[in-house]
């Protein structure tokens, strides 16, 4: 039996007013797969990622996560209707998200940031959540920063804390929105290392990134986007070795100098 994909996108369209940002995308992500999304800025990569957990609404097409339609449901006649808030929240809680600008909660310590979701959303006991949070923070190399406030951390430390916060919800998949783009060059490595170890453990990951080295070495497949469309989708060996599309080749020539 063929395993069902964890994320399935069909004919996805999204526009901001008259501006078409996503123009009919379709792809699948298998469980345990790492999909890297690359492409020039303004190509719709981040918007696509934000549609996956319905931080952004979409106008046409369908997104399925774990066999469930995201953001909509079908009424008796099979028409799409906006889904209930609680159902959308349940789906979001199953997808961890890591942002370019970290978005840690500045009024909470690192530990409080990490236990916030488990305690408030999942209703876990504080003790159990803290134990897991400490283990996660240890894992991302922040065991000594549990009581620190985010503003006192470097960008790399903040992003690792943000990854721990997302992992604390025990998500079925992780979405990364340019996780290293806001970092000083010398701090990029520590974040990529954490992501690489996650991938090695079999976490399903969708990563919007400008780190071509990461896409090449860690991703199972790479998706090249431009102007709201998928230009090319294939294994890194194809994308980086023998791109089928001249647009991919042109983009890579520019970013790889």
């Amino acid at each position, binding site marked *: 039996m063929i395993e069902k994909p964890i994320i399935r996108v069909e004919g996805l369209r999204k526009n901001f007013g008259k501006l078409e940002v996503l123009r009919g995308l379709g792809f699948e992500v298998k469980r345990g797969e790492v999909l890297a999304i690359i492409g020039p800025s303004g190509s719709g990569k981040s918007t696509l990622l934000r549609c996956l*957990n319905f*931080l952004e609404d979409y106008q046409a097409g369908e997104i399925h996560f774990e066999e469930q339609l995201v953001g909509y449901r079908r009424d008796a006649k099979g028409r799409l209707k906006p889904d209930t*808030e*609680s159902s959308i*929240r*349940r789906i*979001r*809680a199953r*997808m*961890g*998200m890591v*942002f370019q*600008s*970290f*978005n*840690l*909660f*500045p*009024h909470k310590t690192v530990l409080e940031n990490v236990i*916030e*979701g488990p305690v*408030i*959303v*999942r209703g876990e006991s504080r003790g159990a959540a803290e134990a897991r949070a400490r283990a996660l923070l240890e894992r991302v190399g922040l065991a000594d920063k549990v009581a620190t*406030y985010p*503003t*006192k951390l470097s960008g790399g430390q903040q992003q690792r804390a*943000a990854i721990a*916060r*997302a992992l604390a*919800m025990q998500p079925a998949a992780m979405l990364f929105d340019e996780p290293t783009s806001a970092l000083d060059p010398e701090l990029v490595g520590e974040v990529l290392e954490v992501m690489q170890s996650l991938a090695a453990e079999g976490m399903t990951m969708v990563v919007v990134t400008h780190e071509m080295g990461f896409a090449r070495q860690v991703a199972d497949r790479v998706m090249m986007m431009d102007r709201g469309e998928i230009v090319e989708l294939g294994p890194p060996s194809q994308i980086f070795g023998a791109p089928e599309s001249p647009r991919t080749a042109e983009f890579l020539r520019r970013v790889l100098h």
Partner: protein
Amino acid sequence: MGYVWQWQMIWDYRQVFYRGVEVTAILTFWALLIGMALGLVLGLMRSSRAAWLRVPAAVYIDVFRATPILVQLVWIYYALPILTGVQMGNIASASVGIGLHAAAYIAEIFRAGIASIDRGQSDAAKSLGMSYGQAMRRIILPQAVRRMVPPFINEFATLMKLTTLGSVLAVNELLHEAENLINNTYRPLETYTVVAIVFGLLIYPFIWLSQRLEQHWKTRG
């Protein structure tokens, strides 16, 4: 010009000021409670993307900010009973009137405070699966409130001084008591000076506290 200040006479009448302070405190407390509660609701409505929430809040805020509070108080005390049959006492009317008025300003403080919080914060809260209420209560408002403290203390000081308008509804607050006293003693300078000092003593501790709070939050980061 030999004006002779007579403070002893004021001291002899100190009970009058004690009574006045008590009523002023009661008015301030209720008006603040109403203003805060309604202000929060209006501020959230005003921040909403849904027009059916945003527009009524905006109308309320504009109407109350654009018309004199004196008229609002008189209206609530004298006109409301005629229209609705609901007659409140003068202290209740003054509390409600000042509270409704303050709510318009407090709503704007809440709205501006919420708007000042980076959108990434609500994105992060939502991505963890939080509801709107959870995100507001746990993530957005705690941060917004810190930025709201200085304008809020301004509003508090204004509100406490607005309670003197209760005198037009014959509420025995500080100013009204003082005016009665002046009618008996003919010592307006001493009396008004004491009124000013008493208001200063009532308000200053809150200003001091807010400065301490800001300092505390600044050092913690």
